[in-house]
């Protein structure tokens, strides 16, 4: 792997009694789109601020481009931030806001004008230079904030929940635009969000955080398909999580039945949790079903029906189906062995990865 652009080495931070970062280790490669995903208070903004320089760490080292930058003040770091509330200076118009960073550096006027024009163009705001900040809509402010940051040509752009104030439609548009912008500029983006859909859609790699700890990192697909624990499974996407027992390698027992699965490397008869995604469950006839459930309710979601059902043992199931099923009818549910994902209790990410190595290479 090439030299990481950012490396956090055993970083810890606490405010008074509350620890917000617990021994964080993290490496970011240049040119990728990273996302820190977690509920509010999980420490993701603090990580961002240790990189931007607005928070000093209590312990550990922060490296940027191979250099330790713990003591470097924010104004001398080669990263720029798009703030959650945009923080556009209300006493300046759009042009002056975008030009702000350049005007501090004795850049020539013509050069500033050229670069501001091009920065505004790249966020689709040509001709907005003379507007006052108070005249802009939320989405436009968002774009100005991005233009103001990228004009500095940073090696890395930090985005602190930049889409959280926008409405759903605009959010989706901006997701595409941000992704496209990142690929065009080719710089590293570190994006913060508590919205799992946003994270899955945009990122090359996601870090899932909770309580000051990075629980799991990986590509969106990895994290979605193989969540490390209950929290990640629950936080990302919809899921059915059940208690079970790992009888032996590739055999797991839950809801009183044994099923073939693709997980291994655990102790025999180890208690585990089983995750099944609603879209991996297929409704079939009672005879063909691995399980039999009774339909409780269903909601039409546009591209699928979200069906709530209960099996004979009283476990509740969430199923996504393209077809409607009559309420109160008894149906069978089927799934493939690779739709079952088994999670051990309290397994760390290293152990998880190591265990996966042991049997996935066998294939």
């Amino acid at each position, binding site marked *: 792997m090439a030299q990481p652009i950012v490396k956090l080495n055993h970083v810890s931070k606490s405010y008074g009694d509350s620890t917000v970062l617990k021994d964080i280790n993290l490496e970011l490669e240049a040119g990728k789109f990273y996302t820190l995903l977690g509920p509010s208070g999980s420490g993701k903004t603090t990580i961002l601020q240790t990189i931007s320089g607005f928070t000093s760490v209590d312990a550990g080292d922060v490296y940027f481009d191979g250099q330790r930058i713990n003591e470097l003040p924010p104004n001398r770091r080669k990263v720029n*931030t798009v703030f959650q*509330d945009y923080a556009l200076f209300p006493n300046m118009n759009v042009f002056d806001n975008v030009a*702000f*960073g350049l005007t501090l*550096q004795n850049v020539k006027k013509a050069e500033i004008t050229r670069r501001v024009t091009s920065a505004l163009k790249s966020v689709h705001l040509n001709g907005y230079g003379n507007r006052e900040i108070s005249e802009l809509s939320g989405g436009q402010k968002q774009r100005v904030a991005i233009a103001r940051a990228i004009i500095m040509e940073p090696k890395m752009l930090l985005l602190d929940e930049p889409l959280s104030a926008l409405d759903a439609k605009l959010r989706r548009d901006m997701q595409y635009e941000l992704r496209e912008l990142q690929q065009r500029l080719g710089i590293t983006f570190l994006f913060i969000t508590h919205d799992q859909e946003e994270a899955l859609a945009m990122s090359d790699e996601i870090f899932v955080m909770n309580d000051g700890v990075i629980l799991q990192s990986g590509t969106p697909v990895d994290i979605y398909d193989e969540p490390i624990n209950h929290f990640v499974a629950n936080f990302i996407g919809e899921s059915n999580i059940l208690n079970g027992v790992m009888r032996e390698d590739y055999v797991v027992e839950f809801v009183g039945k044994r099923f073939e699965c693709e997980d291994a490397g655990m102790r025999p008869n180890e208690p585990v949790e089983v995750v099944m995604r609603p879209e991996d469950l297929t409704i079939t006839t009672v005879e063909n079903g691995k399980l039999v459930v009774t339909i409780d309710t269903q909601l039409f979601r546009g591209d699928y029906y979200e069906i709530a059902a209960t099996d004979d043992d009283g476990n509740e199931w969430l199923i996504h189906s393209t077809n409607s099923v009559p309420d109160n009818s008894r149906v069978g549910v089927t799934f493939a062995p690779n739709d079952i994902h088994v999670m051990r209790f309290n397994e760390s990410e290293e152990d998880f990865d190591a265990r996966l190595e042991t049997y996935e290479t066998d294939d």
Partner: protein
Amino acid sequence: MKSKTANLFYFIPYSLWLFLFVVAPVALILYNSFLDINHHFTLANYTTFFKSGTYLMMTLNSLWYALLITLVTLLISYPTAYLLSHLKHKQLWLLLIILPTWINLLLKAYAFIGIFNQTGVANQFLSFIGVGPQQLLFTNFSFIFVATYIQIPFMIMPIFNAMEDLNQSYINASHDLGATNWQTFRRVIWPMTLPGVKAGVQTVFIPSLSLFMLTRLIGGNKVITLGTAIEEHFLITMNWGMGSTIGVVLIVAMVIIMVLTGDAKSRGGFQK
């Protein structure tokens, strides 16, 4: 329809007040400025005011002193407000800044009579460091000093409020874009707290034109402000016509200050 009558009901005492105590007095002072001692219509008061050098000099002096007081007050108050807004229990500290304003102004002036006395602590200190006792009381210096002392909290409050409205993320954004502390101050903090400064200048400058009790108690009769002149004409020489004329000049000066610092409010709304 009901709300219309209710509206009228609310408004009766209030509009009575507006008319009797706001419109009528201003009109009366304007009217009186055109009267001589025998209540005959005349323009003499204005011609006296603008032709005799003493009145013009006095006006200029008064403006100059008010300007000095405002500047010194601002110089002391701005850093104070800035530092206060960064303290932990800032509301409590602000309250401690406001507390002295609750002590009657005249008591504070009286305290300075004791301090600036020939034998007062200020002169004791000057003797101690070898300068020797000076005439402090009844000088321009003591007037400016005491007026500044009295006005400081009134300057700190609006600036403090402006600092409070200044979100930390603006300062972070500025640093993030590479600005040094000084650049951040000049480009972001100062322009964004300017409405507070303007409000402070308003509340300090205008009263400073009229602190006649201070000129009487501290400045002796050497410092004459517009306020002192008005008091003298109304209560001592009983020349209400001339007093009203000076009053009109003071009102005009006030309006000019208000216009100069006027965009404080319209700009103040930018937080949204």
